[in-house]
């Protein structure tokens, strides 16, 4: 690339001198313009971008100082060399004060001139480059500022809390979600907040800050924040590094996991209940078996048969419970396995009755069916609805008195099929009614003492009814009987697809 010729402006009223300099410098590969007085010199200087401007101090129109001042004002990067025939220290000092690069007394030799120009050009290069750098830096800073504000907006709008802490435990950055999560009213950038953090978090942070080698992984802990209720937070700490890889601080991300915790609690509670309910029959059967196994303990043949039968009974109960649990989990994953067909409820009921015939006659129960004749077919999974009726029928028999009654009633009622199953059993105490559909709830009183059950039957019934957008209610009087009332919508939307 061809280097541009240095551009020189010579402002001098002495024609011979300025022309002489011009031709001399052009020979030396400079680009030269000339001006014969101050004003035209200023005009040229402002219009063009000269590298070096030579200003004679004594000009016919205005003072050389004025010219220098004007030019430096609007072109601070231009190099001005002042020349004069009346050289004096004072003049030199005052011109340098006004921004002149150097001072050259007249007369000067071509070598002196060239030397001054070379020095000037070097300085000019430095000035131009540093201006370029300054501009670049400003642009860069502006970009960073934009980037920062963009990042601020993003971090401020996320729902997780963010705290950035430097290596001496001071707050460097935060978003307001972090304040909410920690239930803090305010914090200040630069504040020492290590001690304000919940203990679990503080300890992890101290590990990070005191580590001899940088901890290279994220560490997560759970913390409880007690406000009006309890909030569970998941706090993840990770080291933040400088660009050279040295430790800068720690970023803490806070997530609210209260909802998740609640579900977990419900799940654990359910598992405990299941474990308890499953363990009881197994323990009882095991107790009997160990008893029979132990030769030191004498039992009669009669007792042995009894224990055997009871063990079988309890294990069957456990199996029944396992099946109920499987049903419930299948229902949780419903639709996948559902086979929806158009069926008549009356038909399902009629198909189920024979299954219970033996038990009904054993207890000498009178069964009456009042099935409506205009019941429309609806979309259902036959095995699910059969299960629903079987659970209700089995309860109606199990909790009935000998010689009691069961009435099953169906009727079309506007958009619903109304189903009632009434028994003359032991009924429910007022306080037990609300609990009846809960998992593993079984009313406990002297009347239920010898009736076995899993405690899941009605839970299953309720889930089936509700999965078809239906409704189940009960009317009951203690020691008189219970009636279950079910509404199933006709235009049910649980149709496949």
């Amino acid at each position, binding site marked *: 690339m061809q280097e541009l010729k240095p551009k020189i402006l010579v402002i001098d009223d002495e024609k011979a001198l300025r022309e002489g300099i011009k031709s001399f410098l052009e020979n030396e590969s400079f680009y030269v313009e000339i001006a014969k007085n101050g004003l035209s010199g200023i005009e040229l200087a402002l219009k063009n971008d000269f590298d070096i401007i030579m200003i004679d101090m004594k000009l016919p129109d205005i003072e050389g100082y004025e010219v220098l001042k004007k030019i430096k004002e609007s072109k601070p990067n231009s190099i001005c060399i002042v020349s004069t025939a009346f050289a004096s220290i004072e003049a030199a000092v005052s011109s340098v004060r006004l921004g002149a690069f150097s001072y050259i007394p007249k007369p000067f030799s071509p070598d002196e001139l060239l030397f001054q120009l070379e020095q000037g050009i070097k300085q000019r290069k430095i000035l131009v480059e540093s201006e370029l750098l300054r501009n670049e830096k400003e642009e860069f800073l502006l970009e960073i500022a934009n980037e920062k504000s963009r990042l601020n907006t993003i971090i401020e709008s996320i729902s997780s809390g963010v705290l950035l802490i430097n290596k001496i435990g001071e707050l460097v950055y935060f978003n307001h979600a972090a304040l909410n999560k920690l239930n803090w009213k305010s914090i200040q950038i630069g504040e020492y907040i290590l001690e304000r953090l919940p203990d679990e978090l503080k300890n992890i942070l101290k590990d990070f800050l005191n580590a001899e080698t940088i901890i290279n992984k994220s560490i997560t802990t759970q913390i409880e924040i007690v406000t009006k209720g309890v909030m569970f937070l998941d706090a993840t700490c990770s080291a933040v590094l400088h660009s050279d890889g040295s430790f800068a601080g720690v970023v803490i991300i806070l997530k609210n996991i209260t909802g998740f915790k609640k579900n977990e609690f419900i799940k654990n509670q359910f598992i*405990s209940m299941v474990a308890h309910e499953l*363990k009881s029959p197994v*323990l009882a059967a095991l107790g009997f078996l*160990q008893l029979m196994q132990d030769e*030191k*303990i004498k039992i009669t043949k009669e007792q042995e048969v009894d224990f055997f039968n009871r063990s079988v009974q309890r294990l069957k109960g456990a199996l029944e419970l396992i099946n109920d649990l499987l049903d419930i989990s299948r229902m949780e994953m419903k639709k996948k396995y559902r086979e929806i067909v158009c069926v008549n409820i009356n038909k399902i009921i009629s198909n189920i009755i024979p299954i219970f015939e033996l038990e009904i006659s054993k207890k000498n129960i009178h069964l009456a069916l009042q099935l409506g004749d205009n019941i429309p077919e609806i979309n259902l999974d036959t095995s699910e609805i059969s299960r629903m009726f079987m659970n209700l029928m089995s309860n109606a028999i199990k909790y009935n008195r000998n010689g009691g009654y069961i009435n099953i009633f169906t009727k079309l009622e506007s958009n619903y099929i109304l189903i009632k199953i009434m028994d003359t059993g032991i009924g429910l105490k007022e306080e037990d009614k609300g609990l009846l559909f809960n998992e593993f709830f079984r009313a406990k009183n002297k009347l239920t003492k010898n009736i076995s059950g899993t405690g899941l039957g009605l839970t299953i019934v309720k889930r089936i009814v509700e999965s078809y957008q239906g409704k189940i209610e009960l009317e009951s009087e203690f020691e008189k009987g219970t009636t279950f009332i079910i509404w199933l919508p006709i235009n049910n939307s649980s149709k496949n697809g």
Partner: protein
Amino acid sequence: MSLIAIIDDDPDIIEATTLVLKSKGHKIITASNPEDGYELVILNKPDLIILDVMMDEPDDGFFLAQKFRKEKVKTPILMYTSVSKAIGFEFGAGEMVPVDDFVEKPISPDEIIEKVSRLLN
């Protein structure tokens, strides 16, 4: 020969435990809920109480044990439960409840005989 009260809501467990202890010549009295169990103990003053946690009852086995101790019934209590681990009852005897031994079922006939004879001495 000692008089032992078994309080458990599972009739099968009561029966099996009764037979095991009877084989050692003990006399057994039983109750199937905390309320009856309380009366049984107050009336008969047994030498040992075997008490189930009976978590389904509103006033469970823990409650009953506390009630006995509050009323200065000093009879040793062997408490057992079926699901201590699942519901976080992982503590030793006397730690949270005023009982003399706390075990998780199942307990073999030998084990129960051993524990009973230790508590009776």
